[in-house]
């Protein structure tokens, strides 16, 4: 099932920084939000649609029967997304990290490639080829920021070069800081020490999120639910399933026997920036060799355990948009796509939508 989600106005997707009265008075937002936020919202929504009787938090701690009941009703819930999408449900994905921006030039992008026989080596690993790109003498590159459209993403995954048109973050959303106070009814004046600033996110009017939901989910054709902090509301409606034609991408991989894995969402790997099987070069009967990687700065993924009333352990994740380059040594291309396309490669929180991957082709030319 696939749904389109539109916040009714602003939404608050908190980061993991502390927020309390008097000291840490600023609650800042992340964007795009973590998939776990949507997973939680969908879990609550589907329980609510099954007329599940929610218990107060004080009564559910150590109440294994209650928690098991939730688990049995939602254990097969999985999500892919959320992805930014316009009103026609055309999706925009995080810009791949190997598409970089030329500093100081408006919307000029080029693509990094693994070097064939590098004249220089990185101290990270001798097996891995550095990425490079030839620029003019006075041109410097920096991380690209923004979102790439579905159609351009396919061109990118086919390994074709294009004049990339990227949506800047400002074309998709704005941050809206709001000042809050506490005003007790008795005095009608603001209370000392209760001044705060919350940084909300407001999507531009034509944008929302698409979300693929798998499992036994009970949702009506449309409705509204709580999303993110402060019980802000979002509406949803069912939409047509995703049509993702990848024949041209498969053809490219067949020709070159080279593939890349692009992360649509953050992935948590036990070993940091790399999954175990990337090292060993074996997964699901396929054999491959890691050639290069383009990984962004780690993001901290946390959350709040409302049952235990404490923050969840903070994990470092490889950010969405990161790209891993491989050579396919043994294995069928169809099997490769089956193993990775829109599947999670994260070591943790797979059901919650972390580590969702797309397969693409590449070559050094």
């Amino acid at each position, binding site marked *: 099932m696939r749904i389109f989600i539109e916040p009714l*106005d602003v939404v608050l997707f908190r980061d993991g920084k502390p927020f309390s009265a008097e000291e840490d008075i600023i609650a800042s937002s992340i964007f795009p939000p973590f998939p776990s936020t949507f997973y939680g919202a969908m879990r609550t929504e589907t329980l*609510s649609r099954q007329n599940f009787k929610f218990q*107060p938090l004080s009564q559910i701690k150590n109440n294994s029967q209650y928690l098991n009941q939730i688990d049995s009703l939602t254990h097969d819930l999985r999500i892919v997304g959320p992805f930014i999408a316009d009103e026609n449900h055309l999706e925009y994905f995080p810009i791949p990290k190997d598409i970089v921006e030329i500093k100081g030039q408006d919307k000029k992008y080029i693509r990094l490639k693994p070097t064939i026989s590098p004249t220089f080596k990185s101290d990270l690993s001798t097996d891995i080829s550095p990425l490079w790109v030839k620029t003019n003498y006075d041109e410097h590159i920096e991380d690209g920021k923004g979102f790439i459209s579905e159609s351009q993403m396919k061109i990118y995954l086919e390994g074709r070069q294009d004049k990339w048109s990227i949506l800047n973050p400002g074309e998709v959303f704005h941050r809206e800081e709001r000042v809050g106070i506490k005003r007790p*009814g008795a005095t009608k004046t603001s209370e000392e020490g209760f001044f705060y600033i919350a940084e909300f996110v407001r999507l531009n*009017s034509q944008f929302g999120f698409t979300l693929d939901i798998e499992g036994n989910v009970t949702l009506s054709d449309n409705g509204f*639910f*709580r999303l993110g902090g*402060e019980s802000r509301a979002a509406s949803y409606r069912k939409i047509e399933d995703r049509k993702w034609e990848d024949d041209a991408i498969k053809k490219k991989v067949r020709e070159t026997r080279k593939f890349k894995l692009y992360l649509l969402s953050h992935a948590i790997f036990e070993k940091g920036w790399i999954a175990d099987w990337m090292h060993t070069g074996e997964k699901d009967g396929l054999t491959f060799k890691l050639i290069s990687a383009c990984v962004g700065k780690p993001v901290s993924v946390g959350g709040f355990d*409302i049952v235990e009333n404490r923050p969840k352990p903070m994990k470092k994740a490889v950010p969405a948009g990161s790209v891993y380059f491989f050579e396919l040594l043994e294995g069928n291309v169809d099997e490769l796509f089956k193993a990775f396309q829109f599947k999670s490669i994260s070591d943790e929180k797979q059901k919650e939508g972390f580590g969702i991957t797309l397969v693409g082709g590449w070559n050094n030319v």
Partner: protein
Amino acid sequence: MFKRAKVLFLYTETPLHTGSGSSLSVVDLPIQRERHTNLPMVQASGLKGSLRDYAEQNYKNDANAKTKITLVFGPEKDGSEHAGAISFTDARLLLFPVRSLKGIFAWVTCPSVLQRFVRDLTIAGVSAKVDNKDLNVPSVSDNEALVTNTSEVIVDNKVVLEEFSFIAEKRSEADGIAKWISENATPQSDEYKPWKEKILKNLVILPDNAFRDFTEFSTEVIARTKIQTETKTVAPGALWYEEHLPSDTLLYSLALASDPLGANKPNDFQTANDVLKFIADLQIDRFQLGGDETVGRGIVKLRILGG
């Protein structure tokens, strides 16, 4: 999670100041605005706080009602115990009063505001129909002002708002919108009968940009001072400017209700319906919203629709 929704219409009877808390211009205390459109609005937290305050004052000595207030609006102290059962959206602008050469003032709005309004009505499950036909939001070209067929703000085929003139264009879509608002969104009590009729004659639909300009430059900016008792002159440094939404502005917000979430729910308080009934039973006619309560600002007349 949310099971029921209602639309709250807020009609300002006195200027409304919901402060944004920051200023970069000559106005020291500007009002809250949407970041992407810059249109005035009232943040949901202020609206919710005011309604909670109203409920608490109303049921001062009723312990049973206090439990319900906590279930509806959330716990006062330990916010992590459970969420409230009602959420409000920011109150959005629907009609904005602007001085008119004829008819004293016109209620202006614009296509993008109306489109969003129709969408919000649909989300709330409220019928956006007039005479069994869907409300049709027309497009407006530059320099044009769409008016109703019974309009009373036309001078020489023009609508003159403040010092700007627009070519008047009578359109049936404007009639439909004016009729829907007059019947469903304006306060219901008798004293509003003349206003309900006035909307049929004074509604003007402007191009989006012109509408935004009016909401930026035609709000009420009030200069305030502090007079020293001894000298009867202004205290040094005590001059400031406040921005207000003018009287006769119409705003709307959605109230979305879920089943109550806390412990010890009374038997008659188990569902989203009971939550909305609690709000309806308050029978709020007027309440105070925003700052400057003691100088008479922010008196708002409420109408609840749908659900």
